[in-house]
């Protein structure tokens, strides 16, 4: 089959010398790496390695004591999540964070809020430009629903859905922001093989069709090695390795971190 090689672009986000501690606990120590445009980057590491903390830092949820993050060449010292969102960084959470009582459609629609130009009053009136705007947004949402193949649960309250589908809805909400950089925190945790395969396909399709850059945390090594262009390994807040899946797999430090080292 003639596969087209995908082109990975310039640096989209640059992390330099990030250190983060909570009291005496050092969660991240002097971490530096880059996320390049259009790539799928996986961040892996044992439990407590600082993976989620890293995403939270990129996302502006945590504020590192040291180091800088520059996004599209623009350095930022202190970042708020909503500013990150406005700049085009969207994320999903390890423990699903959806509005359980709201329908799939409404949940995904919330991802669109930042894109709405009319204020609350206009929307309450639902007339003229506000109505047009709502229709445009709804069309966009419907494309996501179609993309993620969740038409059948469009009107179902999210709390009634099985876990795998909730994860998909959460991805839908992140996509509704039309992000440039998508952060996925364990998108496949707790899924069965079939659900994982579906999710992999969606992630690859998002990356391919929309050109979205993706950084994801994942424990399933098979998945990571299959879909990512580059892998970063963290352990106890330090960066162990950074490279193509095959290089990382062969790296002695990584093998030691995962399998343990003999102490004699």
């Amino acid at each position, binding site marked *: 089959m003639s596969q087209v090689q995908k082109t990975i672009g310039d640096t989209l986000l640059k992390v330099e010398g990030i250190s983060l501690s909570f009291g005496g606990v050092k969660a991240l120590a002097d971490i530096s790496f880059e996320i390049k445009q259009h790539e799928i980057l996986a961040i892996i590491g044992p439990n407590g390695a600082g993976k989620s903390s890293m995403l939270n830092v990129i996302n502006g949820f945590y504020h590192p004591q040291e180091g800088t993050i520059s996004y599209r060449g623009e350095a930022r010292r202190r970042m708020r999540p909503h500013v990150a969102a406005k700049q085009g960084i969207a994320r999903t959470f390890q423990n699903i964070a959806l509005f359980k009582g709201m329908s799939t459609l409404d949940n995904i629609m919330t991802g669109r809020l930042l894109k709405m130009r009319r204020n609350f009053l206009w929307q309450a009136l639902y007339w003229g430009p506000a109505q047009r705007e709502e229709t445009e947004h709804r*069309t966009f949402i419907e494309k996501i629903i179609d993309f993620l193949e969740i038409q059948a649960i469009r009107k179902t309250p999210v709390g009634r859905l099985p876990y795998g589908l909730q994860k998909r809805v959460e991805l839908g909400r992140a996509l509704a922001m039309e992000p440039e950089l998508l952060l996925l925190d364990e998108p496949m945790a707790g899924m069965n093989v079939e659900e994982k395969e579906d999710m992999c*396909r969606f992630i690859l399709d998002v990356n391919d069709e929309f050109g979205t850059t993706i950084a994801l945390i994942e424990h399933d090594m098979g998945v990571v090695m299959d879909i990512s262009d580059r892998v970063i390994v963290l352990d106890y807040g330090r960066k162990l390795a950074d490279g193509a899946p095959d290089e990382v797999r062969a790296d002695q430090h990584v093998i030691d971190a995962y399998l343990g080292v003999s102490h004699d």
Partner: protein
Amino acid sequence: MNDVVGPKSSQTTRQAPDGCDTFPKLLIHNAEKRGDLPAMREKDLGIWQSWTWREVLDQVRALACGMTALGLKRGDKVAIIGDNRPRLYWTMVAAQAVGGIPVPIYQDSVADEMAFVIDHAEARFAMAEDQEQIDKLLEIKDRCPKLEQVIFDDSRGMRHYRQDFLTEFDEVQSRGRAFDRDNPGFFDVEVAKAKGGDVSIYLYTSGTTGQPKGVVLSFENVIRTAQNGIDFEGLTADEEMLAYLPMAWVGDHIFSYGQSYCAGFCVSCPESSATVMHDLRELGPTYFFAPPRIFESILTTVMIRMEDASWLKRKMFHAFMAVARRCGVDILAGRPVPPGDRLLYALGGLLVYGPLKNTLGFSRIRLAYTAGEAIGPDIFDFYRALGINLKQLYGSTEASVFITIQPDGEIKPDTVGKPAPEVEIKIADNGEVLFKSPGVFLEYYKSPEATAETKSADGWVHTGDAGFLGDDGQLKIIDRAKDVGKLNDGSLFAPKFIENKLKFFPEIKEAVAFGDGRDHVAAFINIDLEAVGSWAERHGVPYGSYQELAALPEVYEIVREHVAQVNRDLSTDPHLASSQIKRFLILHKELDADDGELTRTRKVRRRIVADKYLPLIDGLYSDAERVHIDTEVTFEDGRKGRLSADLKIGAAETYEAEPLKRAS
């Protein structure tokens, strides 16, 4: 007995509408006569999109010319693979317009099955719905040397497919529009070339044994049968229908294609196969077909949801359903009913039946058919009691569907009706049902022996089903003729008849009965995960998997009672009393089409099941109380695994045969 029922000679030759003898001609006719009325709808991006007859003609014209530009020649076969989509229906008529022959293929076929049909039909073109089907086609392309061009409808995920034989649907149409400009009149000339007697379609039957066979139908077969159905039921251009059953199945071809083109009514395609129930409700069809298992699962869902409803609603539902069961069927049939009941029924209509039908999307149904398998009398009466005109019919691919239909006012749960217009029926000496009709197929493609076996020189077609005609002139089907066997004591053994009785219980999804050449009858049972799972939930019985649930002693007890009930019923019929089930077991896995145990239309493949589970059958006919089995299973993605289990064998009560009643 050689009773022939039906017209001895065709009394009236029915004309296709305005002399149109092919579907492309009918399309042009509809575009002229009702050009601005909707012909097709599809729910896309959450909204029902529609195309008028004129727009459909425009689309089809562009597609037909486009396929010609790609090299389609008169007589070429076009494989069509995918869910019910307007564009796939248009491919059928577009192929027919330029002399091609559409060959729809079941969309859930695995690659091997697909390769067989495409290779056997010698398809040069294929129209695939999406990436999933394209991937299957690419996998088998080497085995189908005749296949040259592949067109795809949905371009999702297809960006990196660079094979030069792949073309996107829109691209084909834009080439077609250019071709049409350069060759004005080409389309109309090509359409005019075809005649009613020409081949219109190959429909491959899934077949309970062996490889599928390609049933060749002419335009006349399909159009005349469709028109007969329309006249018989008084269908009009105002009907609404949801096309959701496989396009490769003859029923869908007649109902959603043949009859739609002949009567001019609009056909709607669901958003996806998972949204059918939602779409049904939004659409509110007036004309509806579903196999018994769908009516069954709808009823099961209703019952389960009523169990979870509030106290008042549940009471009301049960009270008014009792009223409906008492008099609803009679009211629908127009028989006299006491005024008190009539009043209660009217009140029930307001409070229960109306809202329930609305929830199911059945509010506007004027005509609903079921066929393919026997339907449980309780299920059948449930829908009729609600005021839904549900009827049974009997048909086959070889007949272009209609063989018998139940006429209004003569509806019974255990018959399949009287011969359809222009159909003659007789019963052979071995009990097999034979028929003759204008819908009789031309041949099985490339297999003259099979054709000769099924269709006799004087035009009678063997259905392979055993049945008899009752005193009321209605046909009753008991089993496949070849499956009817004998027990060692010489008495009749009709496995399907017994299995159907078992399957009428909501907890039993599938059953396979054995007894031919044996001393007594034994059976495999498949439990229904939804019904039994719901029971387990309500009674706080924990289970981890289907296998675990199926092995619970409580579940065995439920099934044992049902088997005993079936035995009680069988004991009342002197011919069948010796067919009572002595021993049974509950299978640890669901019988599955992917494992070859069921056909794609979910009929049990008896021989395969018997071979595969031989140790279990031996267990049933021994004194063993448990039996071990190790089976291969196929997962949805095609990988294989092994499943082993230790199954318990249950014994059921049997009853003394009732003495023959003396005629009084």
